[in-house]
């Protein structure tokens, strides 16, 4: 059985934003854990959520659904939402699925926060 690895790290940015870093693969095996982690975050209009995905190596359609879950969770809490550090592949998946129209992609966390904060 192959290893399905996704590392999740949450930290609070000095500005107060929640930054969730994803490292590894986001797919059928790991997506539920992202959803559970996002659900536990307390977000509000003053606490934006930034997903830091520069080390996310793989994301399939179930991974996209999990990212959308995070987006909708932030939206429901009126929290600003952004994705930072998406590589070429991930950006292309966002483009194909059309979800790049829902939120902006930023180079890094600071730029994302400058844009949405």
């Amino acid at each position, binding site marked *: 059985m192959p290893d399905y690895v996704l590392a999740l790290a949450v930290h609070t940015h000095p500005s107060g934003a929640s930054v969730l870093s994803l490292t590894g693969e986001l797919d059928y095996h790991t997506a539920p854990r992202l959803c559970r982690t996002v659900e536990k975050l307390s977000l509000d209009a003053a606490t934006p959520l930034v997903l830091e995905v520069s080390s996310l190596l*793989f994301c399939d359609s179930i991974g996209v*659904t999990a990212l*959308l879950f995070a987006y909708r969770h932030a939206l429901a809490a009126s929290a600003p939402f952004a994705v930072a550090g998406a590589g070429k592949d991930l950006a292309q998946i966002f483009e194909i*699925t059309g*979800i790049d129209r829902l939120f902006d992609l930023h180079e890094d966390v600071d730029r994302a926060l400058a844009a949405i904060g």
Partner: protein
Amino acid sequence: MTTGPITDGAAATILVLDDNDTNRYVVRSWLVRAGHTVVEAADGTEGLALLAAARDPDLPELAVVDVQLPDMSGFEVCERIKADPRTASLPVIHVSATAIEVDDRAQGLHRGADAYLTEPIAPSELLATVTAALRYARARRRAERLAARVATLNRTTLAVYEVTGAEAFTSAAAGGAATLMASPAVALALGPDGQAVHVAVAAGPTAGDAGAPACPGRAEAGVLDQLTDHALGDATGAATAVLSGADWRAVAGRLDGGLADLFPGEVAVLLARTKQGRPPVALAVDALALAGPDDRGLFSQLGQACALALEAMRSRSEEHALVLTLQRTFLPDRLPEVAGVDLAVRYEPAADHAEIGGDFYEAIETPAGLLLAIGDVAGHSLKAAMVMGELRHALRAYAIEGHDPQTLLDRLDSLLVRLRPMMTATVCLVLVEPGGRRIQVANAGHLPPLLRHPDGSTRYLTEHGILLGLNLPHPPAASHRVPAGSTLLLLTDGLVEVPGEDLDDSLAALGSALSAAPQELGELCDLLLDSFGKAKTDDIALLAARLH
């Protein structure tokens, strides 16, 4: 040290270690009169050498050691006996001459001795002490052996649950039975296909270089029925029968591979099943291996563990087959025949056990032309497959009403948001207008369709909107002129998305492959699946259309 069943009061082989010939003679005669066997040594070196040289079955079960020996003290001898793992559980009884201080006695016991007798020793006292020490040592050895066997049982239980496939299962069961029962062992179980009985053999621990006979592999199903006639019948649980050599040979005659002579005498056969009406698992070992109550209990537990594991394996296999059958019913059972358009589809379920994807395809004749569709409901579950079925049927219903592709996507989006909140799906629709010279592409977040021109050049039709499930509007369909002889390929991401591979590269490679692919659609699909569908963990759906 024998490991077979020994009653606590049975006679033992005892080492008498004393440099005084008279004392040794006296002690020996008392022990022999009580039925014990005695081996003698005159000093520590000789005594330890004797223990080291003894083969396991001949190892003394107890040592009577004089405290004062010429070469070393009896205490030291005792310490060395207890330090060697092979003799650590050998009880030691010290004997010493009179005028020994209380401290010496305490020292002897502190340094490992099990008893300490001071002369004058009465025969009855020595014999009673020997009996008590043997009782304790034998109980301890039995407990240690049982603990080791329970560990073996646990390991085997894990092994039979971990394996996939009937062949690996019977191998694990036979190997576990051979180790647990210290006997050659045979395991039989009906494979998940319900046809062939899988047979595995394991040599016992005493097998020579020849080991077990070659694994016979398979046998006809009737052999299990024949065994259930001896034990268990139609009942559930576990039952053991002892078969005569002749009865066993009647069974073994139906299994190739020389199993008839695997056992020297009678054969214990255990049958176990967890549910009524299910084929049982069968284990066979030498009947002599079932002499004690521990043996019978452990063997029975092994049988039940195997039966549970087999049932779990069978359930998984049945579930997977059921899910695949269900999934097939959600997909079209035939494609429409439309003048001027050839169609071919391929559907490859994910390889993983009991995982099921939500890929789908569809081809429907509508008033506005032939509507082709491909889609993917995110998820590997029965739910994803069911939602796929719902979407596909909804698409048919809306398409028959004559809606344009953009409206169809909006309707499907509304339906998904209302009926299945939090689920998403990507769908790509291609309407081939009557005459086949123009197509309309409406893509909700799905991989773009790939078009091959008659000259072999390919391009992706990339206009698209957002995926379904977000309650967002979709753009109008994009219209493309297609020359006669064009080929259109709709696909799901299982064909091109691979961890560690660049998606752009995969899409470009697919474009090149389609350029060079044969004209015939079936061959074309098979070639693409062969080149791109290897080692994929996701479902793959392909729909190819040739427009004349």
